[in-house]
């Protein structure tokens, strides 16, 4: 479905924030604003390092516990990426505004209680990283992330990268993985029933997308035993986005 389209990003889209980014991929569109380092509230102040505040806001409806859960996941990942020790007692604030989630034409959604969940994490994390880069916040490493689902189809198991809402509904288990630019696993969240073998396959597929810089081949799904090749090359995407930003910033050189 929409997974075949390439990810798109624009940096510094909000003129009054320190840094911002708009990212869209696989039906998700997220805008991030980053402000910082700024003065932290007394309750958030840490004597040795900066506090990273992440706020996730759904496109429609009021946020609830799911959003708070996503915030805590992202907060721990981003705190590891940002060099928080450089800014003691300060606050780095990342606000992620979800603008669009994939449509499901076969279902009418309930919207008053927003329900963001798992598969949106890669979009949120990617936008946050781009926003931080746009805000020139010093970081230890960048990160790339992807989502994969294990689905049973015609009696065979398959790992589907960037699953569509329909595939998600049918999936046995869903996994979100994120890697730093040093190829370290920084976030791994799973939902559903799965075996260690399945997780290993998911890990290989995700590492392929997140950690390989080179010409990627867009192919939505693959067999567990067949040649592993799927999804966009996220690191290549991040690099080219940043090269464009740097070239634009330093146009006067």
């Amino acid at each position, binding site marked *: 479905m929409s997974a075949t389209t390439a990810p798109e990003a624009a940096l*510094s889209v909000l003129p009054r924030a*320190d840094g911002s980014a708009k990212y869209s991929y696989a039906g998700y569109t997220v805008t991030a604003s980053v402000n910082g380092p700024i*003065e932290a509230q007394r309750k958030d102040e840490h004597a040795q390092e900066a506090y990273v505040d992440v706020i996730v806001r759904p496109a429609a409806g009021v946020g609830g516990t799911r959003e708070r859960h996503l915030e805590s996941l992202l907060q721990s990942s981003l705190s590891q990426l940002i060099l928080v020790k450089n800014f003691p007692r300060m606050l780095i604030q990342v606000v992620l505004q979800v603008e669009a989630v994939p449509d499901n034409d076969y279902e009418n959604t309930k919207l008053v209680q927003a329900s963001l969940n798992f598969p949106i994490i890669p979009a949120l994390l990617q936008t946050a990283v781009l926003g931080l*880069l746009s805000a020139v*916040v010093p*970081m230890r*490493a*960048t990160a790339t992330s992807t989502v994969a689902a294990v689905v049973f189809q015609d009696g065979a198991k398959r790992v589907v990268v960037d699953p569509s809402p329909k595939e998600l509904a049918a999936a046995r288990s869903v996994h979100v993985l994120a890697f730093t630019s040093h190829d370290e696993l920084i976030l791994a969240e799973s939902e559903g029933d799965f075996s260690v073998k399945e997780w290993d396959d998911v890990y290989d597929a995700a590492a392929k997308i997140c950690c390989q810089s080179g010409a990627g081949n867009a192919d939505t799904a693959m067999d567990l035993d067949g040649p592993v090749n799927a999804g966009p090359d996220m690191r290549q995407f991040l690099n080219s986005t940043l090269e464009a930003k740097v070239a*634009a910033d330093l146009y006067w050189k």
Partner: protein
Amino acid sequence: MAKFGPKRQGPRSDIPAKLGRTHRQEHLNLTTTHNGHHRPPPRPPRRPYPPSLIPTHPKHPLRLGPGLRHVPPSSILPTVAGQLIVNPHKTSMWIESNGGRYTPSPSDLVIGRVLRSAADLYYVSLSPYTPPASLPHLAFESATKKTRPQLAPGALVYARVSLANRHMDPELECVSPSTGKADGLGPLTGGMVFDVSPGFARRLLLARSRDEGGVEVLELLGAEGVAFETAVGRNGRVWVGSESVKAVVVVGRALKETDEGRLGGEEQRRLVKRLVREMR
């Protein structure tokens, strides 16, 4: 503080241009040279730079500028996205980038807004939502308890960062500690401040902003007969003063449009022509 236009008198005509220039070089610490530095392609934060890129000198230690960090024993890693600039003559390297919030560093020239006055110092805001910097009441030229300038909340000052580190709130001064002279620093009266990007402020502060920074609008406007003076703060603020309101607006618009529109030399010349025509 720099002056432009035909009229050369005004409250700050006594400042020798040369002194202003020394500040700029001091505060940059790392000046670009046009010959002999490498320009590898930009890269996001990732792997250590190969030793062949890192300049060495038998006597001078290596100096790391913004955007780099040293991981013992000998790895140098980038922390922000930008272009690596290596200056072998000064054994220095840094990442050139634009954007983000201003982080104070010693000997930067900044434009601050007075928040309030305490017993013996002013609290000054350098950028919104950041902890205030302190400016002692006596850190002005020939200031005593009785003759110190009285600054109301909201007043603007042009100051130098005298102390900045990650664990303390920054401190400012409006006087050179060695000579006791103001060197153009002090309260800014009248005029208007315009917000620009930090990278653009740095370009304006370069010793030769026209050749090295590619900013021509100020000189061009001066040549067109617009009389004004400017003070550039490294914190992304430019103060423009003039007797004519229209001149201030034209200078401000020229600066902001050059910055936001990323204008090159030819476009800047066209912009100035248009603005001057509109003004008259």
